[in-house]
């Protein structure tokens, strides 16, 4: 009988109690910091690489053709495959950085490339006619609209980064990470802890997405003033 079995599905009060109990320990916050720093780094690197490659692809058709198969593969490979292969060569400590990077890159690349393609052609002609410098063109034609429009794509990429980063940690079990604590909760059938840690992950993911969106808006505002 599955009724009344705490370890199959923990009741909400138990989960809240466990969350509070865990939040009182230093280990909890250290694990949160461990995973947060690595996943955020992976996201930023992936986004930067995506934007850079999108810029190059827009400028050089050859580069775009070169990248196209790589992008198609990176987009299609499931997270677990990445992790299992990477684990053969790399230690588990910083694996979530790489995995988040690999997952975020194709999403941001596609979105950035689309953004560049959507640059208003009339504005572009005007910029050419008035002899705008390359730097100014970059800022007003491409960077500003991108900062304004790419919010949703970045938010979903951030969510993906967290999902894939935590999945990587769950498979590779680096010491001191959230994934390791999830794994332990699973092995010892501590379902209350499992849900508590999941709540933390959701909270961190949402917070990161909000913060990044705010950052984009802030940068857009600063650029407009310039």
């Amino acid at each position, binding site marked *: *009988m*599955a009724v009344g*079995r*705490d*370890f*199959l599905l923990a009741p909400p009060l138990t989960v809240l109690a466990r969350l509070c109990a865990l939040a009182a320990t230093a280990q909890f916050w250290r694990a949160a910091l461990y995973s947060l720093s690595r996943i955020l780094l992976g996201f930023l690197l992936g986004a930067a690489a995506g934007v850079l490659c999108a810029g190059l692809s827009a400028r050089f058709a050859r580069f775009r053709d070169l990248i196209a198969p790589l992008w198609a593969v990176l987009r299609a490979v499931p997270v677990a495959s990445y992790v299992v292969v990477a*684990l*053969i*060569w790399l*230690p*588990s400590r910083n694996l979530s950085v790489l995995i988040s990077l690999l997952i975020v890159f194709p999403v941001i690349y596609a979105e950035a490339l689309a953004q560049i393609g959507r640059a208003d052609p009339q504005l572009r002609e005007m910029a050419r006619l008035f002899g705008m410098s390359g730097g100014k063109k970059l800022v007003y034609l491409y960077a500003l609209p991108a900062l304004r429009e790419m919010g949703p794509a970045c938010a979903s990429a951030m969510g993906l980064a967290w999902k894939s980063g935590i999945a990587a940690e769950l*498979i*590779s*079990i680096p*010491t001191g990470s959230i994934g*390791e604590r999830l*794994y*332990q909760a699973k*092995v*010892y*059938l*501590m379902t209350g802890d499992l849900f508590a840690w999941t709540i933390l992950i959701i909270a961190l993911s949402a917070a990161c997405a909000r913060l990044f969106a705010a950052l984009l808006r802030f940068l857009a505002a600063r650029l407009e003033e310039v």
Partner: protein
Amino acid sequence: MKKLFCALMILVLLGGCALADAVRVAALKGPTAMGMVKMMRDDAGESYAFEILASADEITPRLTRGELDIAALPANLASVLYNRTGGEIRALAINTLGVLYVAERGDAIHSVADLAGRTIYTAGKGSTPEFALDYILRANGLIPGEDVTVEFKSEHSECLAALMADESAAAMLPQPFLTTAMQKAEDVRMALDLTKEWDALQGEGGSAMITGVVAARAAFIDENPEAVARFLADYAASVEFTNANISEAAELIGAYDIVPAAVAEKALPGCNICFIDGAAMREKLSGYLQVLFDAAPESVGGALPDAAFYSGADD
């Protein structure tokens, strides 16, 4: 229509009755199943329904849902289940002592102290491998993380791959996988027998390193005492057979697709398959669980199980 329906229901019930008589036993693909091969051969589907599964993750939910009656489990997992289900799972007997060995590619490691400064690759986080290694290292004065680096992989084959990539490292591998590894890579050598290291630390009359126990649902034990007694007698005979007739047992093991017969023949002596029940089980198992509890209470489910956990140890 109603009559047909009734007839069908009766048939289904009768069919269910016939199947329900068979004791549903599950073992893991390794030493636990290797000890059961004679039982499997002799029974041929009459009173037992055997299943060989790949991981304990598959066994746990089915055992707790009542789809299995008896299962071979890691020793600490049996204790965790006892605590989590409020006493619905009990240990019947110890079926495997230590099966862990440290392997290296060379001839440098001859004692635990030689592991200092090296990286040890192992699988089995959250189970016997993690705790046994931790205990043996600390008791020998090496602190994991400082004096030794322990790197956890999710599969034994990954540990072997890591060992092949790093010559100075060591890998903790279980039998029978160790034999498979030594066949795949010629320079892999068995450096340390962790069961012996544990015994050396505990001394006479102390606990032993236990890997697996055979456990059953408490409801099943209470409702079918004769079936349980018969199972234990058959199991004890089967284990004795496997340990005494290595070549014949190896053939059976190959036939049941547990591991290839050639590997089984070399690995069986190192698998430490045993059958310990009753008071001896309680003594050894409680000692082992105590060591685990001292290291990490959640590894045994938060608390040491009480006497009711050790089925058949009432004398």
